[in-house]
């Protein structure tokens, strides 16, 4: 059942569950930051509307910089602002930033220790009809190896706003990952943001037996993990579902604790399984507590055009895929 300590959205399993896109939470978070912190500046690379920075741009035109289609330039100008007392947010699609401008970010923002937040939008195959060119599915892998960066992947629009505000209060580089479509709201305004923490969203009721698997989810797909947990319960399988909103630094202590408690692990992410959330979890476990693990995510292929629902079904990232992974990993325990 849902962890009541976290004050989650109790209506999340209703048919008319509230929906919103994480990118909208980013836009709202920026305006709130802009209201309270005059150092906040926002840069866009010709994607002002779709990265939801329009409202900030209208409210604070002098602190908004339209860079045109030039992601390298946007990153390095952001760096110049960030080392001159500003808190710079650079906004584009993750396929282009940090995709196209990876080395520029590495040198001018990360190694240079500039106060810049990289907002990667339209992440994952759920970007949908645009096709694989616009579906960033390697962004976490390509930046997680960097020292001196924090990585936040909010699971819904409410958490996205909190993650944006939290990033604005951190001095130094942060990567924020957002997705395109409206997805179910799992948290509430009262849910504490999991900065640096893995949070257990779902666990067995008191006296409900021991959980057999922990599912670590990242981003909007956490909802598929929760749907799977709910169905598995009716089949007599209890699991834990944990939200990993901070992918770096990884909350290794909690990851190991939950793995020890269950003895089996499933990771769920809309990202290549190489180097993403699952990789980060596996690295943490291998050090002290090797545990059987199944990886739900993109299996070394590119996506394609389609609706998000069609794509997560075809590429085996939906609740059915999560259930299969849970059963597979339980079988491996024996």
């Amino acid at each position, binding site marked *: 059942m849902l962890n009541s300590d976290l004050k989650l959205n109790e209506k999340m399993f209703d048919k008319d569950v509230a929906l919103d896109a994480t990118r909208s939470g980013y836009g709202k978070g920026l305006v709130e930051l802009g209201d309270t912190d005059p150092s906040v*500046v926002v840069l866009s690379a010709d994607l002002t509307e779709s990265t939801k920075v329009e409202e900030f741009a209208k409210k604070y035109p*002098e*602190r908004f*910089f339209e*860079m*045109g289609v*030039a992601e*390298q*330039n946007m*990153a*390095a*100008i*952001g*760096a*110049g*602002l*960030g*080392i*001159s*007392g*500003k808190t*710079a947010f650079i906004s584009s699609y993750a396929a282009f930033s940090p995709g196209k401008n990876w*080395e*520029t970010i590495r*040198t*001018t923002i990360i*190694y*240079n*220790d500039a106060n810049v937040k990289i907002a990667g939008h339209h992440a994952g195959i759920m970007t949908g009809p645009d096709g694989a060119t616009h579906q960033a599915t390697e962004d976490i892998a390509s930046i997680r190896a960097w020292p001196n960066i924090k990585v936040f992947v909010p699971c819904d629009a409410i958490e996205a706003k909190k993650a944006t505000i939290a990033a604005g209060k951190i001095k130094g580089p942060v990567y924020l990952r957002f997705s395109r479509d409206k997805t179910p709201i799992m948290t509430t305004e009262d849910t504490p943001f999991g900065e640096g923490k893995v949070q257990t969203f779902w666990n067995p009721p008191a006296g409900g037996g021991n959980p057999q698997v922990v599912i670590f989810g990242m981003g909007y797909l956490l909802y598929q993990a929760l749907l799977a947990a709910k169905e598995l319960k009716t089949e007599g399988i209890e699991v834990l579902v944990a939200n990993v909103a901070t992918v770096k630094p990884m909350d290794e202590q909690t990851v190991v604790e939950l793995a020890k408690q269950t003895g089996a692990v499933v990771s769920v992410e809309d990202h290549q399984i190489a180097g993403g959330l699952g990789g980060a979890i596996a690295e943490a476990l291998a050090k002290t507590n090797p545990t059987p693990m199944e990886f739900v995510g993109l299996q070394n292929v590119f996506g394609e055009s389609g609706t998000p629902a069609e794509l997560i079904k075809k590429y085996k990232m939906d609740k059915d895929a999560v259930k299969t992974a849970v059963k597979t990993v339980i079988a491996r325990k024996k």
Partner: protein
Amino acid sequence: MIDDLFDEKIKDLELKAVQARELVLETLLEAGSGHSAGPLGMADIFIAFYFHILKHNPKNPDWAERDRLVLSNGHICPIRYVVMAMAGYFPIEELKTLRKLNSRLQGHPHRTALPGVETTSGPLGEGISQAIGMALAAKLDAKKYHIYCLTSDGEHQEGNTWEALMAAAKYKLDNLTVVIDRNNIQIDGFTENVMPLEYLKAKYEAFNWHVQEVDGHNIRAFNDSVSQALAVHQKPSVIIANTIPGKGVDFMENKFEWHGKPPNKEEAAKALDELRTLQGKIEKGQ
């Protein structure tokens, strides 16, 4: 505004530039790797900046009102380190640590390693963009300091450079002056053979910049061009400084082979001999 230069001061700066070249060669010899031609070619301009043009305080490198000197082509950092040491940012003795373990003098400059280095650089084509960010921040904060960005000619082959040129003109950044070390060489050969840059002046003009061309070894002329750049309104400025790579050492001058290597012991001795002779001549007013 910067002061005009009188003959006595010119002589002093020229002498310092020769001393800087000597220190560059000694530092590279000690390091055993690094670039020779670019640092020697930019000695006059670095001396002009640190000993005349810049508003700065070597004892307080983070002084908020200082002019910013961004070095985009980080590989010529030996000359920056040498001139910073001469200006009092750190002891001359520390130059011996260049490129060695635990040194603040990284092979390519690192902002958080050494106070007074404004940006981390080395990968090319990123300096002007960062200087633009600084210039935008200065405008937002109504600050009066000026942002200078030193670039190589070769890095104008990077697309990022041209992205930056568009943005600086869009935002009418008259608090930004770019200086191009137009020495016509890069690692693989002469720029015009590797990937032609001409007509560079016309390209900048077409990008709506204020353009000047100057002899990069004539300190008075260079100083005058900076004065003019500071007087420009509503436009960023570029000074194309024609320089001789390896300047001051006859067997290195204009040889692209010297772009990316240090002298060996014999070569350094020969080069230092030549520079010390030149130093003596300047001192005697010949």
